């Protein structure tokens, strides 16, 4: 099933978070009133600092976390109310691949096929063989990159229309990252799937994704295509006069200047890189949090 037909087969966007709030215990807010939609056929990068709630957001879509308030949907289905149908639409890869140390790669594929009968075992084995991942070696004897590739091979072989990848490249070396990104891009393109990929590393996102969602601490800061993100932002020198239709976002770290959002490709300063855009929004979030904290302490 390919992207266009997937959109027709399921009502609405691939993934929805609507007023999503997630609180752990009484005082720890992981997500606060997050609303977003992720369309079909995209690889969406979910970027944010530590504790931004990226993993929590992904885990609520997988059905591992229950929203405190608001709702989430996967292909129009609430994963808490109808877990079976929602799970069938997704494949999930956590930061540390959920592998049994004692089982070999081939046995993991067999096990995955037992739980997801539609999984293409031959495809998974072939993908692993092409990447020189030993099929008969226990998972505990595989490298971090090979474990990530095993997790990805299983996820892709499910042919699930939605892939949810929670910082899967966090522990990979540059070569393994590159191989992972290539495998992900090819796999998603072949299947016409939608993927959400959370990451800290902007260069990975640039290579892998076509859509960008920046999460601040618990809330959404930016949600647009990567092409728009770079074309609609510029970096102005400090003190430079802005023109109409431009809005200052935040000062970039390291005296780089100020990130400015613009409606045209020309304007103040120079074109912004994806890293500038991400840094600018994260800096804005940090400043607004610092202000909130200052106001709270004054009020107290």
């Amino acid at each position, binding site marked *: 099933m390919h992207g266009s037909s997937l959109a027709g087969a399921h009502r609405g966007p691939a993934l929805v978070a609507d007023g999503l709030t997630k609180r752990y215990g009484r005082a720890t807010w992981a997500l606060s009133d997050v609303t977003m939609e992720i369309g079909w056929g995209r690889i969406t990068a979910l970027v944010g600092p530590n504790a931004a709630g990226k993993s929590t957001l992904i885990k609520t879509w*997988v059905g*591992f*976390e*229950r929203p405190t308030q608001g709702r989430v949907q996967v292909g129009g289905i609430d994963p808490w109310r109808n*877990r*079976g*149908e929602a*799970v*069938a639409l*997704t*494949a*999930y890869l*956590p930061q*540390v691949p*959920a*592998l*049994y*140390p*004692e*089982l070999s790669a081939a*046995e*993991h594929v*067999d*096990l*995955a*096929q*037992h*739980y*997801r009968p539609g*999984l293409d075992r031959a495809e998974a084995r072939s993908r692993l063989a092409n990447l020189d991942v030993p099929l008969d070696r226990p998972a505990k004897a595989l490298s971090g990159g090979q474990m990530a590739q095993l997790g990805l091979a*299983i996820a892709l072989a*499910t042919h699930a229309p939605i892939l949810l990848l929670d910082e899967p490249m966090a522990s990979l070396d540059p070569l393994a990252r590159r191989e992972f990104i290539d495998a992900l891009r090819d796999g998603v393109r072949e299947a016409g799937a939608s993927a959400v990929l959370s990451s800290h590393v902007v260069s990975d996102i640039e290579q892998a994704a076509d859509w960008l969602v920046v999460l601040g601490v618990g809330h959404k800061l930016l949600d647009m295509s990567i092409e728009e993100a770079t074309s609609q932002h510029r970096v102005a020198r400090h003190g430079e006069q802005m023109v109409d239709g431009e809005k200052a976002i935040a000062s970039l770290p390291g005296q780089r200047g100020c990130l400015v959002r613009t409606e045209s490709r020309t304007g103040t300063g120079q074109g912004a890189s994806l890293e500038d855009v991400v840094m600018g929004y994260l800096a804005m979030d940090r400043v607004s949090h610092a202000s909130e904290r200052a106001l709270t302490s004054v009020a107290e």
Partner: protein
Amino acid sequence: MKAVVRLTWATGGFELKFLFAGSLLLAAASFALAILLNANAPGPSCVANSTTPNCDTAFFYQMGSLGSQLIIAMGALPIAVGGVLGSELFAREIERATVQLPWSLASSRTRWLAERVLILLVLVVLVVVVPAVTTTILEGSINPGVAATDTLVDFGFRGVSVVARAIAVFAAATLIGLTIGRALPALLLSLVAALIIVAAVPFLALATQPTEFIAQLGDPRVRYGLVRDERYQDPAGTLFTIDAVTAKVPPDAGDPTTWIEENFRQVAVGVRGERYWDTEVASTLMLAAVSLASLGAAAVLVARRRPY
């Protein structure tokens, strides 16, 4: 299903090998001892009265005592088997977060649980069933002339009870393992729960049985049944407690103990050994209820639980 069996063996292989080895060792020891006891069994007259001439029963009773210790040691097997296989394997899945793989792929977590439980239940039964049989044989050999199913001696440490206990402990440990999600604390708590189950259920099962015999100490009914209490019986057949009898001692009676022995006989009241099967059925039903309640709660829990 083959993949799940492979997973079970891969993740619990060490524990399973250890438990199977222990089980076979105990079974072999009890079986060998039963053969030895049968070969040296005293005749019925010696059993009735060991002071009968030509009754050299010392070796038999020494080995019988060893056999009783072996049967009681067998009582630890269902606790170990159920506790380890139930709590540790499930808790470890959550502790290592490996359960994320099946839970993110399977359309039903209940089915995931049912499959894992079914395989482990088969293994639990396989580990305990042979010793359960051999301890029953051994019990028969320790008490020649009395069927093992006609005595409540060592009730709960042999026969069907051993299997039912192992299953109940396994079910409770599964619930504890899934609830706590940490292997060592889950194992320790499961062992505590197992001890409670193992102590409480036979007590309750025996409590359901009627008090049927009144017999003097040394009577076979006392030896093979369950003594509930000791009483004093007057010649008319009325039973008294020690306090009631002591209150009846006249002030001029001299030595109260002698007066009591002259006017009353000490008897035991209790459950007949022939109530073995009734008690076994009651015990098994209670253990089945514990098993079903625990596994039902585990099914509800996995539907709502985080996999880490």
